């Protein structure tokens, strides 16, 4: 019996209860962040009261976060860095993925493997040589330093993701365009790339999220408080010794996750629509 045909009991059992459980599971961290961020310290450290409920809500942690730290500046820095490094990575990732997915040439398999291997190189092995380069270019303490270094992680990631997507687009569509007289570039820009928008959106969302959350390079290259990103700024200024400013940390984490949540919710329709669009003539 399908969910659509069943009565409310079937719908509840097969749809709403699992969906509700899944929602509780996924949204619980946000709920926890939210309640922690509006609890006064006396409640945060009180084990005798129910921890899931806020008895005396306060915005003090938000006020402190916004007035005593450069949180808004960090948020803007994070957004700017994520947008620019994602854009750079998508462009270079596409340039890398297309020939590997579509063209046959000697060594393509080896290059594909090298792309994956590059992505797997751990950051702790790379940060010292990259710091040397950044210092030689006198880019320390500038957002440019992370805009240029994040693509070292993101380009292989985007290329690998896009290669898979590019291979799923029927090659016959490109062949048809070539038969109709289009050049290779015209085929790429007018036929192939528009079909790959869902792939770009998913790669872009993942790359944006990775940039937003990146910690090590931002820690190394951005030392002044006014150029920091949210992950580094929050940790640097809200974790002091073995004393954690939990309320402000949770407020920062919650506010910091808003841009990603907005972008996900904004693009989700395009993403889903894009999955079915393109290959069929309207």
């Amino acid at each position: 019996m399908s969910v659509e045909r069943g009565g409310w009991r079937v719908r509840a059992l097969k749809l709403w209860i699992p969906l509700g459980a899944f929602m509780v599971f996924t949204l619980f961290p946000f709920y926890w962040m939210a309640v922690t961020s509006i609890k006064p310290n006396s409640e945060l450290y009180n084990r005798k009261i129910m921890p899931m409920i806020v008895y005396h809500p306060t915005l003090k942690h938000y006020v402190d976060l916004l007035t005593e730290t450069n949180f808004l500046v960090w948020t803007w820095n994070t957004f700017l860095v994520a947008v620019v490094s994602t854009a750079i990575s998508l462009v270079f990732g596409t340039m890398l993925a297309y020939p590997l997915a579509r063209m046959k040439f000697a060594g393509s398999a080896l290059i594909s493997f090298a792309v994956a291997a590059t992505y797997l190189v751990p950051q702790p092995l790379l940060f010292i040589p990259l710091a040397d380069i950044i210092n030689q270019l006198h880019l320390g303490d500038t957002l440019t330093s992370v805009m240029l270094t994040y693509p070292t992680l993101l380009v292989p990631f985007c290329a690998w993701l896009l290669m898979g997507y590019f291979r799923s687009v029927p090659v016959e569509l490109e062949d048809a365009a070539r038969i109709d007289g289009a050049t290779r570039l015209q085929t790429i820009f007018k036929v192939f790339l528009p079909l790959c928008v869902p792939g770009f959106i998913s790669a872009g969302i993942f790359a944006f999220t990775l940039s937003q959350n990146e910690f090590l390079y931002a820690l190394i290259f951005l030392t002044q408080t006014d150029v920091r990103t949210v992950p580094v700024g929050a940790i640097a200024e809200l974790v002091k010794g073995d004393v954690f400013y939990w309320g402000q940390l949770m407020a920062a984490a919650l506010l910091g996750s808003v841009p990603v949540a907005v972008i996900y919710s904004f693009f989700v329709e395009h993403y889903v629509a894009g999955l079915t669009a393109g290959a069929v003539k309207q």
Partner: protein
Amino acid sequence: MTNIIQAASRRDILKISALTAVGGILGASRAGAAPKQMTMMHESSFIPAYDAYFKNTIAPAYEKATGIKIVYETVSVGSIQTRDTTVAETGTGPEMAQMAFNWPFLFDQKLVDVTDIAKIIGDKAGGWHANAAEAVVVNGKWKAIPFGNIGQLMNYRMDWFDEVGVKSFPETWAELLEAGIKLKKNGHPFGFELGHGFGDNHGWLYPLLWSFGAREVDKDGKTVAIDSAETAKAIDFCREFFQKTMFEDVLGWTDVSNNKAFLSEQISCTNNAESILYVAKRDFPDIGKVTGQAQNPKGPTGERFHMLNPWTHGIFTHTPDVQAAKDFMVWLMDPKQVAGWYDVADSYYGPFLHAYDDASFWHKEPRNLPYRDSMANSHLPGWPAPISRPQSESVAKYVVVDMFAKACAGKSTKEVIADASAQLKQIFKNA
């Protein structure tokens, strides 16, 4: 204090320069004009006034006196070693940085020899504590200037101890166990970190090991000495202490966990820096009133120990004007300047200079005095061996912490000693 600082004039700086330069003991000489700016990198302190004092009082005073701007760059806890490593390895970035534990040894080749100014600073402030050199002297040379020790001592609830008839903090581990059994029965267990944090675990387990007469490595720094009857006794005690006074969560605790547990009145005793009392007085005054601090208990040997947790200041070799950095360091550590910095931190950073043994900041809060007194028997992990790279590896791999933790989690004493011994032999094989 600002007035005192302003009293340090350009003339003072010139005097310091002349003193060190004429003495002919400097590793480098000034190549040209004085730098316009230098940077001191520091871990951000949990005491906001401490960082603010440097930025708002010390740095402006030095700029006024010399024209050299001192940038105070703060780095979060847990990140300072990464930053220090990057700066040392790339040879660019801040001229001076705060170090911890045995990092002056780890960054030896990248740090300027500051033996000369260490002597000047020491002579001016009553001389150095004996163990100040333990963390900074590498091959006979001072590679950093000791600043302060963040002591790891016992923090306990005086009112709850009192309830079970314990009027003052127990003198020995055995007495502490006895008190802990009563307190746990009363619903107030102990909570000592046995997880992979950065300090509160080593902070009580090394002293426990030492006070039972056991050693990780011999004095020569090569011979692994962990497999001994004393170690076995320390482990057996630790297991009993864990089972009878604590709860299982402590096996996964990090440094923040015991602070939170103490301030939420979950535990009655732990091993920590002064931060618990500081935050309690600020945010939880009722708990602050009944929080006591005491030195670690004595073991069967009759000795008590503490972990040395030193903050030191080093000058990187890439510094363009080493002399300027040394001048600043001498000026900073002059009691006219540094006393105010220690003072705003309420004795959290215990000075390594005897001039401060009876400083007024120790008496602002008498409960902090045990931290001062603990200096005499504080040592770095690995003591009595000299600081070394294998020792760092042992700490980084939590060999001693895991030895105790695994025993508490159920493994036999023989098994955990064999594991630790094998690990240490591997680590120290090329020492």
